[in-house]
Structures are given as structure tokens and as C-alpha cells.
């Protein structure tokens, strides 16, 4: 009987994990001692950080989409058939078409999704750039924008914590290039009492905002949007008028997680070091869907994938695993259209940003193309 590995979710974390496993366990796969089944819900794989560039016409939508089949090692079986039930007791995943996938090891990498419907009025009154449709709509709205106040609001929780700041700086550059800065007011808001979660990034942003005339309000959590009057009301009791609202809607995990009783709102209790679903040695969790208090980011998913692939491979071939996740996250931060900085941190080391430079911006642009090698488990 082969060891059966099932991976749910063909995004960043699931794809990297699957490809690393296929490489580590190549011999076992070709000899039939191991089987890897990936269950995902879309035939296409989207590089989500690309949405930011789609908004500003820096990247065409089709440049950030690839066929999932082409990204996967040929020894991995791909099923485009959404998982509808994860039955941990019987170690089986059920899919929409009625198939059953028994497993010895399960990797859940179903990511996170935006839920604008959780904020009354946001769907009607707001724009966002966290999915392809939203990014394209916002691209058009910016082209048509005659001037006025652009409010940027951030829901909790959300993935890619640097994106709201990047969006703000890129908006500034966009209107500068269109020679419209005298007609546009940028108003940034943030849920906690500074401009960003990461204190050094927040401290760095303060003078940048001043220099650029970007206004801000902190401790601002969207409660409701009056789309007709164009007003955002915050939980903290303030009101913000806008002409164009760009928000990062709050997020939840995949419905299958909550529906299988694995975690409220789709967040799965995860051991911060082993990445096991707490209390279950055969189930691992990777990427945005963990409940870990760390950034929901592609880099997090990437580093976690290496740990999980290593652990499963070692358990199968050596009978034990010792590799542990140290909480490593790396994020590039675009500070304009031609400069960027980056931060890295882990559970023990706080971040220290480096001064923005053109070189780091080029690295980020390079990574946007190299991502496909990461997904393949090469980079």
C-alpha cells in the first residue's frame, strides 16, 4: 500500500509543497511507494502580488496567470475539483464531484479570501485590488477619476500587510505622473495606532507621508460604508468622506475549513514550529489559512512549504522529522514606481528595514517573473 499524500489548494503554498515533495520523494513516487494527489478548485494559478501592478497598467492580467498543470511536477496527480469536506477522523477528503481521497498525510493550503460582504456597503461603495476583477475595475476607476479624495481603508485580518502602504505610494506616483497631484487628496487609514504593524516601517512612513502630503488617521476600523453619501464610518466613531474608496476588505479562510469543523472563519489551529494542525500528526497546514499570528504572505507560505515538505519526506524515508519553522517572513515594500525596500523577521528577530533603493525595486520586479520558479520548487 503506497503512502498517500493529499494536498488541498493549488496556490503558492500548496504548489511549492507539492513540487518539493515530488523532488524529495522522486524514487518512491516512480516506484509506486508514494502517491501525491493535489486537489484544487481552479485550473489556473494566479500570482496575486501582480494585482498591484495590474491596477497601474504595469503588468497585463495574462502575465500573472499560468496553468496549474504546467507548474506541477509530472509525478503529481492534479484534480480540479473543490474539496467540500475534510474528514480527519476517517482520514478522507471529499470533493464536489463525489470523489474520496484517503490520505496518510494531508496538507491544507486553501489560503484566504476577501469577504467585502462582511462590511455593510463595501461591495456597493468600495474598490479593491485583492482579486483580478477588483484590480481591473480599480484600474478603470483611476483612469476616469477627475480628482477629489481617495480614501484607503484596511480590514482585519488581511493578507500582505504591506500592500495598503504600497498602494498609497503608488497612487501618489500615478497622479504625479498624470500631473494631477493638485486635484487629488490621498487619505490613508489603518486599524492600529500607527501607520503600519511593523514599527520601523510605520516610523519610516511618517516623514514620507508628510513630504508627499498624504493625510492619515489611525485606529480606524471600517464598520459600514454609506455608498450613496460616500462616507466610511469607523468602529471608533469617526466618519470619512471620500470620492473614491480603495479598501483592503477583511479576509476569511476557505469555507471548507469552517464547514469541516477545523477552525472558526477558516483559520486552522497550527503548531507554530511543526506546522501540524494542533493535535493531529498527519495533518499539516501551510500559508494564509493557519491561525499563526504572523503575516499572511506568499513568502510565509513559501518558507512554511519547505518545512512541511522536509518533514513529510523525512517521516516517510527516515521515520522521523525534526525540521521546524522559525517564523521567517520576507516582504518587499514598493515605495514608489522605481524604488523599494524590504524587511525580514522571524519569531525571535524583529525587522530592520533598509533604505529604499532602485536596486531593491528591480529585485522585486525580477522576483515577479521568477515567482514561477518558486512555485515549481526551484527557487
Amino acid at each position, binding site marked *: 500500500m503506497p503512502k498517500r499524500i493529499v494536498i488541498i489548494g493549488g496556490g503558492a503554498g500548496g504548489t511549492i509543497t507539492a513540487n518539493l515533495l515530488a523532488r524529495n520523494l522522486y524514487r518512491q513516487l516512480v516506484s509506486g511507494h508514494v502517491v501525491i494527489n493535489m486537489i484544487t478548485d481552479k485550473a489556473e494559478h494566479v500570482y496575486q502580488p501582480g494585482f498591484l501592478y495590474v491596477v497601474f497598467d504595469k503588468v497585463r492580467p495574462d502575465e500573472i496567470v499560468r496553468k496549474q498543470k504546467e507548474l506541477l511536477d509530472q509525478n503529481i496527480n492534479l484534480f480540479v475539483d473543490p474539496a467540500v469536506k475534510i474528514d480527519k477522523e476517517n482520514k478522507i477528503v471529499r470533493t464536489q464531484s463525489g470523489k474520496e481521497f484517503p490520505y496518510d498525510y494531508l496538507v491544507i493550503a486553501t489560503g484566504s479570501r476577501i469577504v467585502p460582504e462582511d462590511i455593510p456597503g463595501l461591495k456597493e461603495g468600495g474598490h479593491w485590488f485583492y482579486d483580478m476583477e477588483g484590480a481591473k475595475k480599480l484600474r478603470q476607476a483611476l483612469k476616469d477619476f477627475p480628482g477629489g479624495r481617495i480614501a484607503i481603508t484596511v480590514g482585519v485580518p488581511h493578507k500582505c*500587510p504591506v500592500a495598503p502602504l504600497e498602494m498609497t505610494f503608488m497612487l501618489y506616483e500615478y497622479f504625479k505622473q498624470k500631473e494631477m497631484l493638485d486635484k487629488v487628496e490621498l487619505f490613508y487609514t489603518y486599524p*492600529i495606532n500607527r501607520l503600519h504593524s511593523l514599527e520601523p516601517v510605520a516610523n519610516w512612513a511618517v516623514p514620507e507621508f508628510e513630504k508627499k502630503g498624504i493625510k492619515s488617521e489611525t485606529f480606524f476600523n471600517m464598520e459600514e460604508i454609506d455608498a450613496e453619501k460616500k462616507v466610511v464610518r469607523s468602529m471608533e*466613531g469617526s466618519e470619512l468622506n471620500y470620492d473614491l474608496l480603495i479598501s483592503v476588505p477583511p479576509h476569511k479562510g476557505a469555507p471548507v475549513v469552517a464547514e469541516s469543523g477545523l477552525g472558526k472563519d477558516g483559520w486552522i489551529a497550527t503548531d507554530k514550529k511543526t506546522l501540524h494542525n494542533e493535535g493531529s500528526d498527519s495533518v499539516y497546514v501551510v500559508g494564509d489559512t493557519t491561525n499563526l499570528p504572523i503575516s499572511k504572505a506568499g513568502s510565509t507560505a513559501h518558507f512554511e512549504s519547505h518545512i512541511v515538505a522536509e518533514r513529510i519526506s523525512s517521516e516517510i524515508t527516515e521515520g522521523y522529522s525534526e525540521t521546524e519553522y522559525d517564523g521567517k517572513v520576507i516582504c518587499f515594500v514598493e515605495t514608489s514606481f522605481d524604488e523599494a525596500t524590504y524587511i525580514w523577521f522571524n519569531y525571535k528577530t524583529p525587522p530592520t528595514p533598509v533604505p529604499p533603493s532602485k536596486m531593491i525595486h528591480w529585485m522585486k520586479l525580477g522576483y515577479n517573473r521568477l515567482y514561477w520558479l518558486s512555485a515549481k520548487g526551484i527557487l
Partner: protein
Amino acid sequence: MSVAVDNTIDARGSACPGPTMELIKAMKSSAVGTVVEVLSSDKMTTIDGAAWLKKVGQELVETSDKGGYWSIIAKKIK
């Protein structure tokens, strides 16, 4: 501790999104009556968290120094 905690979030070592954001997330997604505790390795969480709870009219139950880390306990009252 006078109140039984329903949900403890261990945000020690969390640089981003950080303990205050974890408190906001937990308070938003909890039912009225829930008592939430956030653990943090940064003392500022007790000050920032308390300030936010006051702004949104939620109850601060207590903050405490646990020796090397801090705890903030809040109750969702509305």
C-alpha cells in the same frame, strides 16, 4: 484572574500583524460576552490595546506583567 478567559491568542514574537491587530481581529470575530486574552512580548500592547478598547467602548478586564511577557484581557460587551 477574576474572569474566565474563552480564547487566548499567543502573539508573543509576532512582529506583523502584531498583538494589537490580533486583539482587534479577535474582538471583531467574537460573540458578545466572549473574554479574549492576547499575550505579547511587547509591553506597548497593553497600552495600545487598552486605548483601542476605550475608543470602541469595549471592556478592558485587566492587563498584567507575566514576567518576560504581557497579557491583556478584554470582554466583548456589545
